[in-house]
């Protein structure tokens, strides 16, 4: 699904990612953990196509298609989804409008006709219930005045509606209380399928209590220094990140 080979990324002249390789197969859930400043967010931004990063080496591809030269919207239409660590507030654009614009852009890209208004609403309302959100959220401006937890739930709602193939969750657990975390996790788990892959970027092991990964990677100083099963996350939780340096 997602193939990252020896990816090297600079911000300005400064190397941030120093050769990352990662292979995520359809249906797999991977977690990337690492201390602050290890390059976790850079990785998620580069995958989604945010400006301000220079790829100096290596490649990223989704289902064999090179992502590096693709505009962010094309990546999204090809099935890549980034749940933001800090979702942006968009005053004046309602949630329902953005959801419909997003879905129709994807459908158009795939040569499908526009979604029927009634079908769309039924579908969205189904998903919104799943995330324990009030229908009123649909008619509010995107993320405007939302609490931290509401913003994160809204990201998952967009993910549920857009039905991407490759989901990247960037610090989705940050700023969530335990109830919200469980709801978000349940939402993500309901979206797991054999054709959809996940990459969870997180500082803490907490989220992984609710969404069990198949593979855990440890990122430190722009490199993956350790890869293992879910038990690796627990080890990190107990020992902290201090011992990583010794391993590397």
């Amino acid at each position: 699904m997602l193939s990252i080979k020896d990816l090297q990324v600079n911000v300005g002249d400064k190397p941030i990612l120093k050769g990352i390789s990662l292979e995520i197969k359809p249906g797999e859930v991977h977690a990337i953990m690492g201390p602050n400043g290890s390059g976790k967010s850079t990785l998620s931004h580069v995958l989604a196509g945010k400006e301000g990063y220079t790829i100096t080496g290596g490649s990223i591809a989704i289902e064999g298609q090179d992502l590096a030269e693709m505009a962010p919207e094309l990546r999204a239409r090809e099935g890549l989804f980034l749940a933001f660590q800090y979702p942006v507030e968009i005053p004046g654009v309602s949630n329902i409008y953005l959801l419909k614009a997003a879905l129709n852009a994807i459908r158009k890209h795939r040569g499908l006709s526009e979604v029927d208004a009634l079908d769309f609403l039924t579908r969205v309302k189904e998903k919104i219930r799943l995330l324990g959100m009030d229908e009123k959220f649909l008619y509010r401006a995107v993320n405007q005045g939302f609490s931290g937890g509401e913003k994160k739930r809204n990201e998952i709602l967009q993910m549920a509606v857009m039905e991407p193939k490759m989901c990247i969750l960037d610090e989705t657990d940050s700023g969530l209380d335990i109830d919200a975390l469980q709801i978000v996790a349940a939402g993500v788990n309901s979206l797991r399928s054999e054709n959809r892959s996940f990459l969870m970027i997180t500082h803490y092991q907490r989220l992984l209590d609710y969404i069990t990964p198949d593979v855990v990677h440890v990122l430190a100083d722009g490199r993956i220094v350790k890869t293992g099963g879910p038990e690796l996350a627990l080890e990190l939780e107990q020992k902290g990140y201090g011992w990583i340096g010794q391993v590397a």
Partner: protein
Amino acid sequence: MAITAGSLEKYVEEYPEIQSTLPGQGLAWLEQLRQQSWVQFSTHGFPTIQEEDWRYTNVTPLIKKSFQSAVAKTVATSAPEALASYLIPDCWQVVIVDGHFSKTLSQLEGLPEDITVMALSDALTECPEKVASYLGKAVEKEGHGFIHYNTAWFSEGLFVSIAQNVKMKQPLQLIHIVSQENVATATRNIIIAEAGAEGVVIESYFGNQDQAYLTSSISEVFVAENAHLTLYKLQNEASKALHFSGIYSQQDRQSTFNYLDFSFGALIARNELHTSLGFASSCDLNGLFVAGGRQHIDNHTWIKHQQAHGSSRELFKGILDGRARGVFQGCVEVFEGAQKIDSEMHNHNLLLSDNAEIDTKPQLIIYADDVKCAHGVTVGQLEDASIFYLQSRSVSEEDARDMLTFAFANEMVDKIKVSSFKKYILALLLQKFPQGSIEQEWL
């Protein structure tokens, strides 16, 4: 300056001949008023950038152009081709073409007897005393070249009077069209809401594609005690047009005046909006101006709280692209003894290009000590983070920009209470900021 003087002379010299064709012949009070205005205009001409209120707007192009006054009374019998596209559904309609009323194109079917709607020229024949008690009264203390010009030259206008305690059941749309190249039109509208009356008037201004011409329009608005008047204005003139408009309103005690302006067209446009508020009266003044290319749109507003316990709200938003220039000069004045005034004035601007410019000057003049007056101004660009966020949701960069710009404008559209007019404005905005196949969702 030689050119200026020469062209101004042309306007001044042709006047005696034109005067005899203007409406209201034989009314001594009007002849006197016109004469005084002509003398003022002959002496001072159009405003210049040396005047503080006009420092951002240079009207020299108008003087250089020396347009022909639209005086020959040629009543349009056939509709301009585009007329259908100017009509807002579910409204009564009064059509003025090239400065003259067209009865055949107007539509006032079902208008109740207690609402008077007629051409100002007809009102001057049928009820001159009534017109005399209003015409010139709201602009009495104003006075610059455009007002003098308008008073001397006006060839027509809209006369509306809503009788005491009458509520208009649907809005009245004034459709002002200039169909000929190089004409100068001057119209004067009188809008009266008598005590306890309620009504909605939509002034709309259109022209032919890329023709150059002058629209000079002044509306004197009178909102009597406990009356509630809403005035919408749409300025969608042709791309080389010059548009000078002034709305001057007088509000009696406990009245409300709501105003919402949409300025999209013309090469140079000036909107003056002045309102004087009586005891415990309130106003809500709003505007959206959208300009690109080399357009210049100047908004000059002045809220005069003359008596206590009034409130005012004002929000003007500007969207400027290309080399366009926008101006917002907003003044809130609280007179001596006008205590307990609650006023807020805001101006927010979005610059879409590096060459666009906004000059914004909010101003408070306060002579009372127990008042609450706030004002705020912002100037900004679309945020990269917002554009990227939308792109990450499959929206193209271009659509994302349009979506965000549209969203900025949409706050003003949401203030429209007449659904047919709201749809009309939305459609115009979507032409400017198309968003692919999603557009219908807004409508």
